[in-house]
């Protein structure tokens, strides 16, 4: 690993260097994301046709019970089973084609079921019962002390939707932005068109994240309003810099990294992530054609992968994906909709068959969700987690899916050996983490050792799912701002320092627990109330560790 000067971080006064401006996006490596045109066997349809709102219909994803065989459906491939339009269907109704699993919740009376939308077993935090509530609670934490990464977005226009196609959308299912069509063609459209943020809190609020400001504004104490004013001016300032950076003809990636390290404003995140990942080209003139090409490429990959019947699929991979897709963010509306689940299936399956050394590994499904939600958020004015993507025009949905696929591919390129046979990447990371913790918190390491706790017993999952089972998706998204700003190694290298800092955070508690207590505690950590502030503290600690230890690897272990 080569040494390089880091970008400036919050909490740490390090002078930003100019050298990282030279770090082009090619840092991410020329993976198959760019040469994949060569593996598409059929020549791609003209890019013109793809930009039109009604693309030709690809084949449906084969389902076990779907009897459509190989006929090309006239409608889109995402509508194999349409979600119940009236209300959010319980899980049993979303996927009627899997009777053995889906029949469970239906028709049985008198059973005691515990429905929990939180996966942390034994969670004592009742607030986490519903994702919405969890979000609301985070807002409470954000209020008052969160400066970065929570920038005000524009109010929702009252005007209805531009397209009659979208008139189905209702308040309970989400609202599509009127300029979704323009954003589809030009990801920066929305940013350019939007005026700088006005006084927040006056309008209906598009995103939950903004609600605390309303609350704060209703009853401002003097101190509070002063603090808010200060925060707001910092935010506005940062936002201006961001927009300036993003709307340049040739984005300065160094500048973008520096800004992104401290958190990306919600509405700028979709574009910023795609630029940081090297998916979207830095020079503005290239973007349109690249996007068209990549989205078209993905579409043909999907067509190719699902060209034959269900029997034509790799059975082992498909079987595992079928089991895991309904278990991806269970209880969150967006992910329970059939449309989203079909998209997820395609993304996972196409990635898996293109990476035979790993194939699909459980946990990769989790890694798709931040991309999908963030990219979806560009086109809508409501909470992505409550949104029914069936409301989107087909080509917009296809674009979100394609963008998610390519960005997932880029992320996974850096951590592929986490998922190949025997998972050597994870073995190595866990080992290094154990060595590092021994150095930075010897009493904790000694205690874990004395209790016979092995790092593998808890940290395996931390590496395998990039902490997504330990923190919320909102937390993860904020964390990835920094990871993406750190560069291509972050998901394997920087992550190790984040995990170490994360463990040491609980040191005092852990040192008073026995084996069982430690394992149980680490299995369901009390991070439910975490907001951006906690994540940023963690990232700062990880940064310090990284600066101290990264180039001193000979000091620990091997």
């Amino acid at each position, binding site marked *: 690993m080569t040494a390089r000067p880091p970008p400036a971080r919050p909490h740490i006064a390090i002078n930003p260097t100019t050298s990282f401006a030279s770090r082009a996006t090619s840092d991410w490596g020329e993976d198959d994301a760019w040469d994949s045109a060569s593996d598409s066997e059929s020549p791609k349809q003209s890019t013109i046709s793809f930009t039109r709102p009604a693309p030709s219909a690809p084949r449906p994803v084969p389902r076990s019970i779907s009897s459509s065989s190989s006929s090309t459906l006239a409608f889109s491939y995402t509508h194999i089973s349409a979600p119940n339009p009236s209300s959010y269907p319980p899980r049993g109704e979303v996927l009627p084609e899997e009777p053995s699993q889906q029949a*469970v919740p239906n028709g049985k009376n008198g059973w005691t079921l515990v429905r929990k939308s939180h996966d942390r*077993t034994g969670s004592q935090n009742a607030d986490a019962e519903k994702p919405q509530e969890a979000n609301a609670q985070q807002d409470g934490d954000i209020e008052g002390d969160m400066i970065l990464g929570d920038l005000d977005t524009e109010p929702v226009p009252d005007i209805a939707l531009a397209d009659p196609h979208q008139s189905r959308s209702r308040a309970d299912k989400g609202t599509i932005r009127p300029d979704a069509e323009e954003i589809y063609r030009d990801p920066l459209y929305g940013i350019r068109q939007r005026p700088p943020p006005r006084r927040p809190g006056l309008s209906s609020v598009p995103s939950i994240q903004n609600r605390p400001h309303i609350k704060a504004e209703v009853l401002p104490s003097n101190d509070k309003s002063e603090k808010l004013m200060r925060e707001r001016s910092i935010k506005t300032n940062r936002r201006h810099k961001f927009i300036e950076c993003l709307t340049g003809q040739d984005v300065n990636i160094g500048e973008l990294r520096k800004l992104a390290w401290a958190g990306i404003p919600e509405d700028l995140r979709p574009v910023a992530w795609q630029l940081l990942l090297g998916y979207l080209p830095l020079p503005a003139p290239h973007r349109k054609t690249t996007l068209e090409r990549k989205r078209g490429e993905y579409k043909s990959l999907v067509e190719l992968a699902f060209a034959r019947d269900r029997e034509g699929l790799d059975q082992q991979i498909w079987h595992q994906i079928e*089991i895991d897709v309904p278990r991806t963010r269970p209880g969150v509306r967006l992910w329970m909709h059939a449309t989203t689940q079909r998209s997820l299936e395609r993304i996972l399956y196409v990635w898996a068959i293109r990476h035979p050394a790993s194939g699909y590994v*459980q946990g990769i499904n989790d890694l798709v969700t931040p991309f999908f939600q963030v990219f979806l958020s560009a086109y809508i004015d409501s909470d992505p987690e409550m949104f029914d993507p069936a409301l989107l025009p087909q080509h917009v949905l296809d674009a979100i899916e394609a963008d998610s696929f390519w960005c997932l591919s880029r992320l996974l390129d850096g951590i592929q050996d986490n998922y190949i046979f025997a998972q050597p990447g994870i073995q190595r990371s866990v*080992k290094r983490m154990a060595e590092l913790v021994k150095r930075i918190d010897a009493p904790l390491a000694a205690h874990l050792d004395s209790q*016979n706790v092995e790092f593998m017993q808890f940290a395996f999952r931390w590496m395998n799912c990039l902490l997504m089972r330990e923190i919320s998706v909102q937390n993860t998204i904020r964390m990835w701002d920094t990871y993406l700003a750190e560069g291509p190694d972050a998901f394997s290298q920087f992550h190790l320092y984040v995990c170490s800092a994360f463990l040491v955070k609980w040191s005092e508690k852990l040192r008073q627990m026995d*084996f069982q207590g430690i394992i149980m505690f680490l299995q369901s950590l009390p991070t439910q109330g975490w907001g951006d502030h906690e994540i940023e503290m963690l990232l700062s600690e990880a940064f310090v560790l990284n600066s101290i230890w990264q180039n001193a690897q000979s000091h620990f272990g091997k």
Partner: protein
Amino acid sequence: MWEHSKTRNSTWKASSKSASSLKPLLIPSPPPLSSSFSFYTVRRNHPRSAYMTEGSNYDFLFKVVLIGDSGVGKSNLLSRFTRNEFNLESKSTIGVEFATRSINVDGKTVKAQIWDTAGQERYRAITSAYYRGAVGALLVYDIAKHATYVNVTRWLKELRDHADSNIVIMLVGNKSDLKHLRAVPTDEAKAFSTENGLSFIETSALDASNVEAAFQNILTDIYRIVSSKSLEQSADPIKPPTDTLNVSPSVEPTNNQGGKCC
């Protein structure tokens, strides 16, 4: 393949009877903590009681693993047994998860330390490390998915390769509430179990039927073997379980788990 596997696994028949090396895996308790961990130095003098996990008082501590194909309901069996919870919206298990519960057998408190493993093949290298030191295994399949039953033979091979040869195995047909979707006849599974020296039960984590019985049965079986053994010879209880096991080549990458990894 099915027939072939059957014969290959016939060696399991008598295995649970000769609990010769089961002894080192048994950790008798009182006084609770000091006994199970007495071979490690406790370097701190914090008051530990505040964070001490309940159920530290037990007479026997048994390590049990839950194995079987992905999606058969292992995690829900565990949560039903340890917390009386069933979660329709559970996520997949990554690596292993841990839970514990104490039950009463013949007036003795038996504490089960249960490791719930991920079902996907890719995790085998990680999860098989947890077979070491296990005195019991619940091998779970889904009565509504025949493929998960066919794979039982592969799981038995996994155990034979990585676990102690005297491990007590119980075959568990889960999701017995899905009567209309049954794909594995009870008699067939029962016959297979008898043939291979396994105990057998059908459960439903969803409606809770037989879950308690499944764990009660396997823990009682283990207890019987262990206590009859205790009468014969005096206990040599504290011994790292890893000593008794062969580590096969496929666990090689995880061998830093062998207790002292750093």
